[in-house]
């Protein structure tokens, strides 16, 4: 089916194939190679949407990403909010609708894949128009590593929308040859449908490749829909072309009003006639091409309205084609509702507008000149300069590693753009020390016709009586000249303020057409040079990028690594419920059928206290500290003395920051005079190693000591409980596990079937306990041997929750749970772990500050709910005992908070640890804890609630 506005031939769409799509529920057809916009125009449809604030009809006004009009919602194949019809490639089954202003998100997750790829090149060329292709060829021919990215579906840039000739043949033949040459070059990456959307430091450019949407239903599911290219280039050539600039006049938003160059693109690239009767309004010569091309294609061009009093040297050409040229005239307004029906044309001289007359048309083409697409240059913090002649901002300085070529640099003739691309690429190669190829020929372009100087005209004075309220500067925001004038009238002078007052430039197109216009109009209203007004900042991304594309593959199970121990599969098979501890997955408890967590934990706790339990403690951080000065380092970093530790022994230690607050704790094994194994908390492992390295490298390089992470080198299985000796003794018969031969806080090496094993008498529960260390290659084997040996004693695997209950019963704090970065060792009741002998250690000096002497510092104490029933929620606040059982009105002074709270199998009651102001002085007092609206009386106790004498640790 040939649509009504499709030309009989020409264009680059595949006319042999018909694609069906729906728009606003209406089924229409187009061809592969169409955009949604070209297909809509081919079907005679100009209005795409209604505007956000005023509900005015809006249509397609440009042919690519600068279009301020044609916003659509994609419905099928998957809902996607707010895209430009001009950038959506037509595919079978596409369903879209016009957008009144807000897009709609899908209500189901997007199952498409997205990914990112790093790529390094010598030269990155952005834009595959004449300048970009010339630059890419020059770079490629030199043998350099090159990437060429271009946002369109095919290379050619402006050549796709014109009739230019090179080497006496259609220019697109040269484009095809260039593309083929680049494809054959081994070190060239050429990507179409790829928009460079951000330029960052050191040659880093992000580009989004749209990989599958144009394939419609044929899109393979295992290929990413979109890809973010993380391009790192030693040199960047920005050849991004220019955006045509409209002129503002009354009712300039009627569908059928279009940039002149866009109409050429629709004609030549898509074989679409965007109208039957056209008026062309211009301030420069470029629009004459549109008038002549459209005329040749059968459009009745009613008039070229040229604002310049002297018009253009191309006037004669038009008149030969039967096109009337009105020089010194402007379009002052339009008529029509859903589509323009008339252009109002009036004489224009010295800024004064004469009486207007109506010319019938269904297409009004506008050209106010061209704005170089300087976005990437500006994002790279290149300074822009206002060019009075062009009425546009152009690159105003040279940047290291980034050069601008072609129209993006303000050049607008084909030969000049080609030569500029080659020149810039050669300069880039030279800077990299690469010689250009001997044969680096440019095609020959026809001698350009020297254009007449353009007129810089931002807006046509409003003679419609609407006082600028229908003269749209930013169509997407419905912002008008009147709005700009109001902002100035309110006292605003900065372009940034005007932008915020009017919201110009904040919509989907980020001011691609409205930005420079606004600068011009503001300058005009304030009577200052445009250069002084400047522009608002160009910020990434150049065009909108889907969140999911930036998330890439870091979603679902790859969102953040899961770290697991060598026993993870065993835990899963055993039905463990896991807890996230940092990136680690740790078994929290192992419920049996029918058990909830409380039941499971009470069972696990009882098993440990009365029999034997086993824990996978492999996530504990482990650091091998070696060297003659190892003890010196540890003495400086721990609050207590480590140098006095004997080889074969173990000591608990606390580390503080320079501010004196506890940052980590753990045990230290002295393996040799010059070697320690430092255990850290699970969450603190990386932090503590970094901490050691920082001090050793930056402060104490003279210390002869090396620190190496061995966290994954050893699995650690605490075997805990009164029967642990039986279990460990059975599995490791070579070790005398008696209390006398193997005392508390010592370690012994042994072997199991020739495999080295280390045992340590360390207890985090108060019970007799042995920690078993072995290379994780043998983790499963050793674990299972321990289970086997423990079977007669009912050995019970337990998780972190039971571990926490058991340690809390003994008053052992968990750093990060019972502390919060404001707690000193003294606050934890660990003055015994703070050396008084050492002249200094990290944190010591802070202990003597005024706030550290405050008797009302919070101290770690135990709490026992008086009702013996309530498990206080962790985090609960503690207040003074209220005799009437009622909370006073806020603010209620708080004494501290509950840091840990559990039900104790051993005590047969709940208990808690808490940080309480002056807590140790309050032992024996009753205070209140508000819980769900009631005040729960709790008794303050010491923090050690089970076996305070320490009688159990030897079994």
């Amino acid at each position: 089916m040939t649509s009504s506005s499709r030309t009989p031939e020409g264009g680059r769409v595949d006319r042999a194939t018909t694609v069906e799509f729906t728009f606003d529920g209406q089924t229409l057809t187009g061809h592969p190679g169409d955009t949604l916009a070209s297909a809509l125009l081919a079907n005679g449809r100009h209005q795409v949407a209604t505007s956000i604030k005023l509900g005015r009809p809006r249509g397609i006004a440009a042919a690519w990403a600068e279009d301020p009009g044609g916003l659509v919602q994609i419905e099928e194949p998957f809902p996607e909010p707010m895209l430009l019809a001009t950038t959506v490639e037509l595919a079978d089954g596409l369903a879209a609708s016009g957008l009144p202003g807000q897009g709609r998100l899908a209500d189901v997750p997007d199952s498409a894949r997205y990914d990112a790829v790093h790529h390094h090149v010598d030269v990155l060329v952005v834009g595959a128009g004449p300048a970009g292709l010339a630059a890419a060829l020059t770079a490629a021919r030199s043998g350099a590593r090159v990437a060429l990215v271009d946002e369109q579906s095919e290379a050619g840039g402006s050549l796709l929308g014109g009739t230019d000739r090179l080497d006496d043949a259609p220019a697109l033949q040269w484009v095809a040859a260039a593309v083929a040459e680049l494809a054959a070059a081994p070190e060239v990456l050429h990507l179409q449908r790829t928009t460079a959307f951000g330029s960052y430091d050191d040659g880093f450019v992000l580009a989004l490749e749209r990989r599958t949407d144009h394939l419609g239903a044929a899109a393979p599911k295992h290929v990413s829909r979109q890809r973010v290219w993380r391009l790192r280039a030693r040199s960047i050539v920005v050849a991004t072309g220019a955006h045509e600039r409209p002129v503002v006049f009354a009712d300039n938003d009627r569908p059928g009003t279009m940039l002149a160059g866009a109409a050429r693109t629709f004609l030549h690239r898509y074989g679409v006639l965007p109208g039957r009767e056209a008026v062309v309004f211009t301030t420069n010569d470029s629009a004459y091409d549109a008038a002549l091309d459209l005329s040749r294609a059968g459009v009745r061009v009613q008039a070229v309205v040229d604002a310049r009093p002297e018009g253009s040297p191309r006037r004669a050409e038009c008149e030969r084609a039967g096109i009337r040229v009105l020089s010194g005239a402007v379009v002052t307004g339009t008529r029509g509702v859903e589509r323009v029906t008339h252009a109002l044309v009036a004489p224009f001289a010295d800024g004064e507008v004469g009486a207007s007359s109506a010319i019938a048309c269904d297409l009004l083409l506008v050209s106010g000149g061209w704005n170089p697409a300087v976005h990437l240059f500006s994002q790279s913090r290149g300074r822009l300069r206002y060019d009075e002649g062009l009425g546009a901002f152009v690159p105003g300085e040279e940047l290291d590693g980034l050069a601008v070529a072609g129209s993006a640099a303000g050049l607008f003739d084909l030969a000049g753009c080609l030569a500029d691309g080659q020149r810039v690429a050669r300069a880039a190669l030279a800077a990299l020390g690469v010689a250009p190829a001997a044969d680096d020929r440019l095609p020959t372009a026809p001698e350009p016709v020297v254009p007449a100087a353009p007129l810089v005209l931002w807006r046509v004075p409003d003679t419609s009586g609407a006082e600028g309220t229908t003269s749209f500067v930013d169509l997407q925001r419905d912002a008008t000249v009147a709005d700009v004038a109001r902002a100035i009238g309110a006292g605003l002078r900065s372009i940034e303020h005007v932008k915020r007052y009017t919201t110009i430039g904040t919509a989907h197109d980020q001011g691609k057409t409205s930005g420079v216009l606004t600068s011009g109009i503001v300058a005009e209203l304030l009577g200052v040079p445009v250069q002084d007004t400047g522009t608002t900042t160009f910020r990434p991304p150049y065009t909108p990028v889907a969140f999911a594309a930036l998330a890439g593959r870091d979603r679902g199970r790859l969102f953040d690594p899961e770290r697991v121990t060598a026993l993870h599969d065993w835990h899963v098979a055993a039905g463990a419920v896991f807890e996230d501890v940092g990136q680690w997955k740790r078994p929290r408890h192992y419920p049996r059928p029918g058990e909830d967590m409380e039941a499971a934990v009470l069972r696990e706790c009882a098993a440990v206290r009365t029999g034997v339990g086993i824990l996978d403690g492999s996530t504990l951080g482990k650091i091998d500290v070696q060297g003659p000065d190892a003890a010196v380092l540890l003495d400086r970093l721990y609050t207590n003395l480590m140098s006095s530790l004997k080889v074969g022994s173990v000591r608990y230690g606390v580390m503080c920051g320079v501010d004196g607050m506890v940052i980590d704790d753990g045990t230290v094994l002295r393996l040799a005079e010059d070697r320690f194994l430092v255990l850290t908390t699970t969450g603190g492992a990386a932090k503590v190693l970094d901490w050691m390295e920082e001090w050793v490298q930056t402060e104490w390089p003279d210390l002869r000591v090396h620190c190496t992470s061995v966290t994954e080198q050893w699995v650690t299985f605490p075997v805990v409980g009164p029967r642990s000796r039986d279990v460990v003794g059975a599995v490791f018969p070579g070790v005398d596990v008696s209390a006398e031969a193997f005392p508390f806080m010592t370690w012994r090496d042994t072997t199991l079937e020739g495999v080295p094993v280390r045992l340590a008498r360390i207890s985090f529960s108060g019970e007799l306990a042995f920690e078993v260390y072995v290379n994780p290659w043998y983790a499963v084997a050793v674990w299972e041997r321990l289970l086997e040996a423990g079977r007669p004693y009912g050995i019970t695997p337990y998780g972190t929750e039971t571990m926490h209950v058991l340690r809390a019963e003994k008053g052992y704090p968990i750093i990060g749970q019972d502390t919060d970065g404001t707690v000193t060792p003294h606050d934890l009741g660990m003055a015994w772990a703070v050396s008084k002998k050492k002249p200094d250690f990290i944190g010591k000096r802070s202990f003597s500050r005024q706030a550290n002497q405050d008797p009302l510092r919070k101290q770690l104490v135990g709490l026992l709910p008086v009702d013996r029933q309530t498990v206080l929620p962790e985090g609960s606040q503690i207040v003074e005992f209220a005799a009437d059982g009622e909370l006073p009105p806020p603010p209620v002074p708080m004494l501290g908070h509950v840091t840990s709270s559990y039900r104790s199998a051993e005590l047969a009651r709940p208990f808690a640890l808490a940080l309480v102001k002056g807590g140790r002085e309050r032992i024996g007092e009753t205070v209140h804890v508000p819980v769900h609206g009631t005040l729960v009386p709790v008794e303050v106790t010491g923090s050690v609630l089970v076996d305070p004498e320490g009688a159990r640790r030897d079994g």
Partner: protein
Amino acid sequence: MQLIACPWCGPREEVEFSYGGQAHVPYPDSPAELSDEQWAHYVFHRDNTRGRFAERWNHSAGCRRWFNAIRDTATYRFERVYRLDDPKSVTP
């Protein structure tokens, strides 16, 4: 995303590095002899220069070595990097 030139590994993406704040702030010889105010200055106060700034970086995802850099905090541009045992660079 910047490239930072690790003095050993060469230029790498900034995500491989962690920041260590102002350089050349030595741990006091005798903290016990400092007044609370002097100690507070060591613990909490660091220069916050706009412009050239000598600072510490660690190639945490690479060789894990600390090094110093002169960087402009306004432009983020690295003027140079140097090893810890290099003589102190003169900062503005």
